[in-house]
């Protein structure tokens, strides 16, 4: 196959791109995105360290109440906290940087198949989210002796890997608004207050009532509810929350796509 390709290509005739190679290009792009970020400690360390450190400190070490549910509850909370950052930062910061440093322009000039760039980043964020959840699960089982079924653990992993997507969309939108070095600051201004106000650090019931009423506005509140369902602590149905996140994700994607088309 290889030799035939070469022989044909030696003549200056133009050939169409076979579907197999188009799919290969999507795969290569996704593989490169994953490799490149998982190899970058400046990206991976904060993403992985913050949720695991918080869980270790506030969950496992300082859990004197010996409430059997507390560790499971915090597993869901810090899981959501940890899942948000690869979405917001992996997507938003890298897009903002690459719009600034010429890489996005080069990618647009190259015959990269449509959407491969964004799909690659999505997949990378999903992998990073998966890593965070797996680490938290390992700590919960190994150090916290949390009682979870394999099904519940799997469901939490799935929640994390899919739940990163609305935050990718949000990060992408911010990445189209801010250029270059300003993006991490702006994203932290969203990430940290949103985590607090959606009850990821302190349970919602302990927050002022004004913040409690405001909480349905934040996508993280809804992902938190879904994650609690996954570990068996949910109340009511999880589906309305899934729907809200879907709307969030699609909405921000459309906004970002419109801005990307306009400004490039």
């Amino acid at each position, binding site marked *: 196959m290889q030799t035939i390709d070469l022989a044909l290509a030696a003549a200056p005739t133009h050939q169409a791109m076979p579907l197999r190679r188009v799919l290969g290009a999507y795969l*290569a792009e996704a593989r490169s995105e994953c490799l490149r970020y998982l190899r970058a400690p400046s990206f991976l360390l904060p993403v992985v360290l913050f949720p695991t450190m918080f869980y270790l400190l506030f969950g496992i070490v300082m859990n004197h109440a010996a409430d059997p549910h507390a560790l499971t509850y915090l597993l869901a909370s810090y899981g959501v906290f940890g899942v948000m950052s690869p979405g917001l930062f992996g997507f938003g910061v890298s897009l903002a940087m690459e719009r600034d440093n010429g890489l996005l322009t080069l990618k647009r000039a190259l*015959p990269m198949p449509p959407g491969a760039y964004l799909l690659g980043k999505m997949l990378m964020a999903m992998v990073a989210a998966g890593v965070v959840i797996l680490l938290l699960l390992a700590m919960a089982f190994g150090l916290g002796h949390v009682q979870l079924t394999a099904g519940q653990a799997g469901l939490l992993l799935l929640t994390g890997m899919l739940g990163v997507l609305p935050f990718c969309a949000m990060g992408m939108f911010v990445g189209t608004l801010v250029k270059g070095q300003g993006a991490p600051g702006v994203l932290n201004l969203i990430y940290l207050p949103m985590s607090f106000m959606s009850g990821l650090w302190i349970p919602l019931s302990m927050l002022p009532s004004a913040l409690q009423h405001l909480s349905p506005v934040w996508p993280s509140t809804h992902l938190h509810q879904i994650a609690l369902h996954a570990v068996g602590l949910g109340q009511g149905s999880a589906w309305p929350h899934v729907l809200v996140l879907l709307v969030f994700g699609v909405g921000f994607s459309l906004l970002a796509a419109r801005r990307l088309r306009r400004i490039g």
Partner: protein
Amino acid sequence: MEHAVAEVASLAGAVKRYGDLTALDGLDLMLHRGELLALLGPNGAGKSTAISLLLGLVRADGGRVQLFGKDPQDIDARRRVGVMLQSAVLPATLSVAELLRLTMSYYPAPRTLDETAELAGIGDLLSRRYAGLSGGQQRRVQFAMALCGRPELLFLDEPTVGMDIEARQKLWAAIRRLVAEGCAIVLTTHYLEEAEALAQRVVVLAKGRVLSDGSVQALRARVARARIRCLSDLDAQAIAQWSHVTSATREGTRLAIQTDAAEHVVRRLLDADPALSELEVLRAGLAEAFTELTRETSTEQEAA
């Protein structure tokens, strides 16, 4: 609907405005198969905009842009094109081989990794991380990425900036090989000697229009201006009156003369002052050539 002629890409009456600024003002440009075209011009002349239009990065406000007979935003057209942009920061944590494999995956029938590395002279860099390379090495990797897809048209934007002399000459040799294979190349550069060494055709842009389009010799003939410097006590003001002398000034003990007929003036200088020494004749640099060309057009426009 593709043209049977050897035209690979064209701009016809292309207009591009950025707010109040008109970057391209009805530009006509045609690229031919197997031809190396050097696109020259001062900063802001419209070179980058012209290339951006041909690559489908921006849309023209007017006129027609074609790449292999198609819209440049058509991915099938861009699969026949290779690109090396002036500034692009590539993923630092990927190895050179990984970057090349990724770029190769975008093309229907790319070169092999070995062939690409050999052509671009980066065989020794394949396993290195991109971030660990010197500026010149990074440019060579970007050049390899541009040619790895076996393009029929190659855009090279300031390819040799940051390269040492040896690397630059290797790159020139590779460019010549590609042209010999029938690849069309658009080269933008600030180095006149680079255009001289490589280009069959030179197009000079200014203010978004074509100022001159022809061979390297034709361009040089248009800016046949030279600077003469020497140690002499001849009167500068008197020399300024000589024929073919544009200006003559005294800089301390030295005379500085601008002329469009250096041989003629040098002969007369030597006759007039047998004690003349440290004679230097410099052909106009690219910057002077551009100043000259652009000045000509603006006066023409005023006269019209």
